């Protein structure tokens, strides 16, 4: 960059004239056409990218180091911030890795909840990816439509977890709370609206001449190279390899739901777009199937007997007025105001070494109180036996793996996240070299880089 004048940067003069002098163009770290903080230093010959060097790390915030400081469950909020478009999948994958290390199994209902919420998150992720990358190609309407659809789904997420983005809903041994009342009906409505949006987008984009010209044949990577770069997820399936962790190593309830692994052959940006559009439909299909067959049925909140406000219940417990309290059937919100005991057992593993007792038990009995303290106090808590485990699940961008190592203590010795979007970013230079500068934008969009998980 030192030798080039401002004039040359603007016009690319001297490049493409056979002088062999390439123009260096630094794009990023903050560039309006790139979602995510990343720097690409490209050597340009005219408008052709001869060589590209990708620099990452601008969003590094020591996720893996931070996990080693607190207890095993304390890493859950950090995992929210890995892939911040589909944080639920990260939560569950981390929790499952620790469960594998502990050798415990979660309840059936919990598996279904994890499956349903993961699939809703996957749709959110694909909506964001397709919406944002088509906006960068000028299709702003598509972006607005897709964000509208994402909004419907985020309302579902908010209903279940109480938050939209930093949800912290997974727990080692279960989930924070059961699904709320009337969730299935809300899902049905939201999916209907999402399907309408997808239909509109199909009509706007899939046969759109401008869109096709910019996507077909652009950013292609051969099947062999995709595999050699360890790329998984929609990019691998767009290159014709039907690898999906949900099918190859079914975890949670994926072996009991119907879905197809969507593949394309071309391996270019258009194929990736088609795979993502197909996968959204499959994800909704999985969520619907899982909701229809979820064990435990709808949550029965109409208990007979006196209903006590959870706050009053806790107050009485604190004052020591515990006599008879355990016998009183209470009605609590399954989500935020407390834990409903019968519901609690359905979604959490019955393992006292791992799962916090319901608040009623903590405040209502000495055993519950001790159990609570044993899990909360420093030096106690969840203590998996010394060892290691690798758990892979299908994140929205590909194989999301957690490698956890325990030294037998109450905090992780090492937590390694295998970020699904690191391999495609490592191969990004192979996708853009030899193509135009403008092709960088759709290719970068199709990779769906998520800074949070890439840089950790």
């Amino acid at each position, binding site marked *: 960059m030192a030798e080039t004048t401002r004039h040359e940067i603007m016009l690319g003069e001297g490049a493409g004239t056979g002088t062999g002098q390439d123009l260096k163009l630094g794009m990023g770290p903050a560039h309006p056409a790139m979602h995510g903080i990343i720097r690409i230093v490209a050597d340009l010959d005219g408008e052709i990218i001869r060589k590209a060097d990708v620099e*990452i*790390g601008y969003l*590094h915030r*020591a996720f*893996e*180091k*931070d996990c*080693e*400081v607190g207890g095993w469950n304390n890493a859950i909020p950090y995992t929210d911030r890995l892939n911040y478009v589909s944080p639920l999948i990260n939560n569950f994958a981390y929790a499952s890795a620790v469960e*594998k*290390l502990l*050798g415990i199994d979660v309840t059936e209902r919990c598996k279904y909840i994890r499956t349903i919420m993961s699939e809703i998150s996957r749709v959110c992720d694909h909506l964001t990816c397709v919406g944002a990358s088509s906006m960068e190609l000028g299709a702003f309407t598509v972006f607005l439509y897709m964000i509208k659809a994402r909004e419907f789904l985020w309302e579902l997420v908010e209903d279940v977890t109480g938050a939209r983005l930093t949800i912290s809903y997974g727990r080692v041994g279960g989930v924070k709370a059961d699904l709320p009342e009337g969730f299935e009906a809300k899902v049905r409505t939201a999916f209907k609206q999402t399907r309408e949006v997808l239909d509109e987008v199909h009509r706007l984009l899939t046969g759109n001449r401008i869109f096709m010209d910019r996507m077909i044949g652009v950013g292609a990577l051969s099947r062999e*190279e995709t*595999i*050699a*770069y*360890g790329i*998984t997820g929609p990019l691998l399936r767009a290159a014709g*390899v039907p*690898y999906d962790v949900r099918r*190859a*190593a079914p975890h949670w309830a994926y072996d009991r739901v119907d879905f197809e692994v969507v593949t394309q052959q071309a391996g270019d940006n258009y194929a990736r777009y088609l795979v993502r559009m197909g996968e959204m439909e499959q994800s909704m299909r999985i969520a619907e199937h899982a909701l229809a067959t979820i064990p435990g049925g709808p949550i029965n909140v109409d208990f007979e007997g006196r209903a006590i406000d959870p706050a009053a219940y806790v107050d009485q417990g604190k004052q020591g007025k515990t006599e008879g309290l355990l016998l009183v059937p209470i009605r609590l919100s399954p989500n935020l105001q407390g834990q409903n005991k019968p519901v609690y057992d359905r979604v959490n593993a019955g393992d006292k070494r791992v799962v916090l007792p319901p608040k009623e038990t903590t405040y209502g009995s000495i055993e519950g109180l001790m159990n609570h303290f044993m899990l909360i106090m420093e030096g106690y808590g969840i203590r998996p036996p*010394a*060892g*290691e*485990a*690798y758990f*892979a699940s299908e994140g929205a961008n590909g*194989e999301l*793996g957690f*490698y956890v*190592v325990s*030294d*037998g203590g109450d905090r992780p*010795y*090492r937590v*390694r996240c*295998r970020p699904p979007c*690191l*391999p495609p*970013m*490592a*191969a990004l230079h192979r996708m853009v070299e030899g193509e135009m500068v403008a092709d960088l934008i759709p290719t970068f969009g199709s990779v769906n880089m998520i800074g949070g998980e890439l*840089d*950790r």
Partner: protein
Amino acid sequence: MDGAAILDRLRTRFGAALVETHAHQGDHTAVVEHAAIVDVLRFCRDEPDLAFDMLSDLTAVDFLKFPGREDGPRFEVVYHLYSLRHNHRVRLKVRVDEDVAAVPTAVDVWPIANWLEREVWDMFGIRFEGHPDLRRLLMYEEFVGHPLRKDYPINRRQPLIGPKI
């Protein structure tokens, strides 16, 4: 092929170069001699009935404060391999002493090893011999130390870099 068979296969082929094998929670692991690792990786990739065509992950663990292992080799470099064709996995490890802190590179076997090894160098300070471009991946060049080492304090602050305004 199930995990035990994979380990048997590696043991018959490499014999003494396989230091140790174990299977914890269903994950089959082989600890490989430092010098043999690239041969083992290439064998895993090319052998038709193993066919590990994908390097899922490459990372390291610092055992400085691990109870019972404070004296042994300080680092373990961990490779997670996956076979698309056979749908099986294996984990390979290389133990590295602190004063050596170098492992032969796997870039020639899988190109993704390029970035993953850069990250391990960045975070743990383990060099990869023969790596074409061993720069830091996540931290900046002026950063001092390797943050995921157990003796790097989590609250250490480094001076701000960049042009003085």
